[in-house]
């Protein structure tokens, strides 16, 4: 590669390309944040039986994680009561549907609602992104505007110098599209300072969070009876201990050095 390819650039490139793209990216992030906040549909009012089913499951799960906080007799009482009712199906929202197996997620309107919410979120992510990429490609393609301070492999030439059409130009000279990518990935701290930490401005981090969760959108479609049976079994095998067991020793141990 040539020692130092110098290209004389008009300083106006900065004022009319770099700055607008940056400002637009920041503003889009803010817009995306408020859009996704507004598009969140309010949680729907659920029938009493359904709510009781969910809360009972939650309650039993809570007992399973926090059992050390209550004494042995209290835990025993709660466990017996929960297991008995779970086995009898007293918590089930629809006792007639026992043993009919898994419901079809498509037939349940509540499930459809949830999927619509996710679709809305994705649309709020995708539309601005493709719009801006189209805008940049339409207005600012075909010439280089900046030089990267680090070298890249020639594979990037296709993408970052799209439409420039000079074969020997160093890959470090890039067109406006690469500045778009840099801002796409690097603006997260800016959003953090403008919108607070829990913002929804950057779709890249959001996608990462989603893939980490590995959330199954159909997770709610489990057969509730099976869930209750599993919960009852889990409760049965717990070996109880009380957090205050031996607390005197621990306290004395802690203050031993102070004497």
């Amino acid at each position, binding site marked *: 590669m040539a020692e130092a390819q110098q290209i004389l*650039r008009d*300083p106006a490139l*900065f004022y009319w390309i*770099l700055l607008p793209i940056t400002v637009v990216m920041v503003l889009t992030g803010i817009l995306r944040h408020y859009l996704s906040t507004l598009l969140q549909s309010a949680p729907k009012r659920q029938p009493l039986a359904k709510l009781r089913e969910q809360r009972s499951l939650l309650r039993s799960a809570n007992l399973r994680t926090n059992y*050390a906080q209550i004494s042995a007799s209290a835990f025993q009482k709660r466990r017996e009561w929960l297991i008995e009712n779970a086995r009898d199906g007293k918590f089930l929202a629809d006792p007639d549907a026992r043993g009919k197996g898994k419901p079809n997620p498509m037939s349940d309107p509540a499930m459809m609602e949830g999927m619509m919410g996710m679709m809305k979120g994705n649309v709020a992510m995708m539309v601005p992104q493709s719009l801006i990429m189209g805008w940049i490609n339409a207005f600012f393609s075909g010439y280089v505007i*900046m*030089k*990267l*301070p*680090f*070298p890249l492999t020639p594979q990037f030439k296709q993408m970052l110098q799209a439409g420039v059409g000079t074969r020997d130009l160093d890959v470090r000279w890039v067109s406006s599209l690469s*500045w778009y990518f*840099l*801002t796409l*990935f*690097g*603006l*997260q*701290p*800016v959003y*953090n*300072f403008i919108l607070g*930490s829990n913002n929804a401005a950057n779709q890249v981090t959001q996608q990462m969070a989603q893939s980490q969760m590995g959330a199954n959108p159909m997770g709610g479609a489990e057969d509730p009876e099976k869930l209750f049976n599993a919960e009852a079994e889990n409760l049965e095998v717990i070996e109880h*201990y009380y*957090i205050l067991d031996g607390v005197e020793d*621990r306290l004395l141990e802690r203050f031993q050095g102070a004497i």
Partner: protein
Amino acid sequence: MLDERELATRPIVQDSVQHNARTVSNIRALTASLFGVAAGTLGLESIPGFIFYALGTAVVSVLIFAFKAESEPKAYFYRPMADLWAGDMFGGLMSFVLTWTLFYNLAKA
């Protein structure tokens, strides 16, 4: 089982963990951007630029250790090694590259 009991008697509160992690990542993001400004203004290229970033984050780690964690990282972080020293080392890299490129071009153009 013993570990579980230990955790129950001295619980780790999720909110505090999150708050600490967020503080560290905020500091890192801000300093990474500022390092990018410095590297771009100095006109560093390729390897020296990244070395500059590595040195800068190391210094920031020491500063967090000394001032934010008051030299007692055990009290603030569950795993001091992973959360304070190595944690989020590359979280600010993209913002560093962003400001680095911007100021490199502004200074050299």
